[in-house]
């Protein structure tokens, strides 16, 4: 008997371990995958979920915040949902089941459960470190997902929407996606719920960009008001590759979206844009780490948060500049509009610089409505609630406008934002 087994599991911890036990023999995987799963769940059982004492989870004490986890239900059903951008190719996972109907030219895809069964998934199941609770839960329980490869030089005309729809119960999905050299694509990773019943979703995307690939990756989280979403994206950029990450949180009760990546090739460029629309009693955490490992790579991060009601938000952004990574240029900013006295946002930008010839900067502000702007709108007959909504919208719309090359995409995302604000403001 291991001493650590003495910890008393919380209801949520027990539910996760039970979900695993109940599915043994049913979860896909070869010998290596199954034994990895065992190890991960054993770690979960002994270490428990992370608490605020774990630095990476300081603002999101998962052990306390995650009160319960709904039981896995393989019979759950959810309806089809239209693509957020008309004309996209939709590859979906509905209640854990992959559907591969519209694979565009230049793309190959297969169900991730096949990679689990043939064992090729094993290497990717390793956690990122001792504190990688999301990787651990997901690796133990992952069932479905998609493995996608965009061919070298392929330029996709329409976005690919990876659609994860969950009505209730649990879903644990993975998306290893590789972009060949010079490939150009827009991917929308979209998580949504079709019911108000609670669901628990963990999802890990593992994205690699070969040299010169140019990718826009949007994570659009629109889950229900009772849902837990634990998301993670791992990314690695080759030489002169460009990754534009865009995270929009517009739903969920307990949300943690992690983004962990490396600029491994010279000239790699990472852009992170984040919009957190927070309301009700929700808790939403966006945690970003980027390691500049080679010279001449660049990154900018801009996060805009709008917080209503008793919602809480967290942004942790950590940029590491390796000793050899001279001429790195990294900028980070996080601006928040707090719209109620009980709303709260914690921002923790961090820089760890081991090289000496670099330009890095960060800033975090809490903004308030500009009174003059508000009065100007009112003086034109726009009622106060509507005027405020317009200003909130303007605060985040400014960021979406950066995607102006794709008008349909901008329109779709602005639609998500204004629909959310109409409901909450």
């Amino acid at each position, binding site marked *: 008997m291991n001493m650590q087994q003495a910890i008393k599991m919380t209801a949520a911890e027990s539910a996760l371990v039970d979900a695993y036990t109940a599915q043994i023999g049913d979860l896909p995987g070869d010998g290596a995958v199954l034994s990895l799963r065992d190890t991960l769940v054993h770690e979960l059982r002994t270490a428990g979920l992370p608490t605020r004492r774990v630095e990476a989870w300081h603002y999101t004490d998962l052990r306390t915040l995650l009160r319960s986890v709904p039981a896995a239900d393989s019979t759950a059903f959810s309806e089809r949902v239209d693509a957020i951008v008309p004309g996209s190719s939709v590859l979906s996972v509905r209640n854990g089941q992959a559907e591969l109907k519209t694979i565009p030219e230049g793309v190959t895809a297969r169900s991730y459960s096949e990679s689990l069964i043939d064992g090729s998934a094993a290497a990717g199941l390793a956690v990122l470190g001792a504190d990688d609770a999301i990787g651990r839960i997901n690796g133990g329980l992952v069932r479905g997902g998609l493995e996608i490869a965009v061919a070298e030089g392929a330029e996709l005309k329409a976005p690919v929407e990876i659609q994860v729809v969950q009505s209730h119960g649990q879903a644990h999905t993975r998306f290893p996606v590789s972009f060949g050299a010079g490939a150009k694509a827009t991917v929308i990773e979209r998580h949504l719920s079709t019911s108000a019943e609670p669901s628990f979703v963990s999802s890990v995307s593992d994205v690699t960009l070969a040299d010169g690939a140019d990718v826009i990756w949007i994570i659009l989280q629109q889950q229900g008001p009772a849902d837990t979403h634990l998301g993670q994206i791992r990314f690695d950029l080759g030489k002169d590759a460009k990754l534009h990450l865009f995270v929009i949180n517009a739903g969920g009760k307990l949300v943690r979206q992690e983004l962990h990546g490396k600029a491994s090739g010279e000239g790699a460029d990472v852009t992170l844009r984040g919009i957190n629309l927070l309301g009700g009693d929700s808790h939403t955490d966006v945690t970003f780490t980027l390691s500049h490992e080679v010279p001449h790579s660049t990154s900018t991060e801009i996060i805009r948060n709008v917080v209503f009601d008793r919602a809480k938000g967290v942004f942790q952004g950590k940029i590491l500049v390796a000793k050899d990574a001279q001429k790195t240029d990294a900028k980070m900013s996080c601006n928040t509009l707090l719209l109620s006295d009980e709303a709260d946002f914690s921002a923790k930008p961090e820089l760890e610089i081991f090289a000496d010839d670099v330009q890095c900067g960060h800033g975090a502000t809490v903004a308030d409505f500009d*009174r*003059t*702007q508000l*009065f*100007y*709108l*009112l*003086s*034109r*007959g*726009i*009622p*106060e609630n*509507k*005027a405020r909504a*317009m*200003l909130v*919208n*303007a*605060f*985040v*719309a*400014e960021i979406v*406008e950066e995607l102006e090359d794709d008008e349909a995409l901008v329109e779709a995302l602005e639609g998500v934002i204004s629909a959310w604000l109409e409901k909450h403001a």
Partner: protein
Amino acid sequence: MLEIKNLHARIAEDGTEIIRGLDLTVKAGEVAAIMGPNGSGKSTLSYILSGREDYEVTEGDILYNGESILELDASERAAKGIFLAFQYPVEIPGVATMQFLKVAMNEQRKYRGEDELTTPEFMRRVKEAAANLKIAPDMLRRPLNVGFSGGEKKRAEILQMALLEPKLCVLDETDSGLDIDALRVVADGVNALRSPDRAVVVITHYQRLLDYIVPDTVHVLYRGQVVKSGDKTLAHELEANGYADIIGAAA
């Protein structure tokens, strides 16, 4: 149409009194000019008329069509037909000019129980009004007032006024920063709105604008009070002799 009676008002934040017992009456169909040296309270008066909450009325009343408007907020006053062309129009990044115009027009219509404008009807009105004011369509595609030159901002104010068709128009130094051609365009825009059921209050330093928008009455504001009223000849007197005599007499 507008009756201001013994108005006292102060800055809400620090209690400084700016308007100190001001009386002014403007009838329907009238164009009233308000003149006065810098810092006398002209802009403050215009803000108080339009309901800016940074100021507190401590005494007196403002009647609009016979009813007090002190309890109405800025958007209600606007929907009832009060319009202020700002001395310094406000830039709002992230708000598209066209969307702003549409929301403003439709919200006012909703308040008055009228149907919303259809998109083609809205577009038609904007195009026509913009052409009259020599506003390039490209300007309307930018975020509200962002990157507009001083003159463009003033013309955009008059465009809004033309589209919203207010009953009481207050123009706060709309002439400042305009060259003579722009001044003429703006004045034409204002004159086009003159009608028996509409009143215009023109705040200005200079006689120049009043050559184009000829006032029925002229009022001199000093230290938060109207210290002298007259007809358009008063504006010429001020132009010739400055404010010193009048201020001296008032002090």
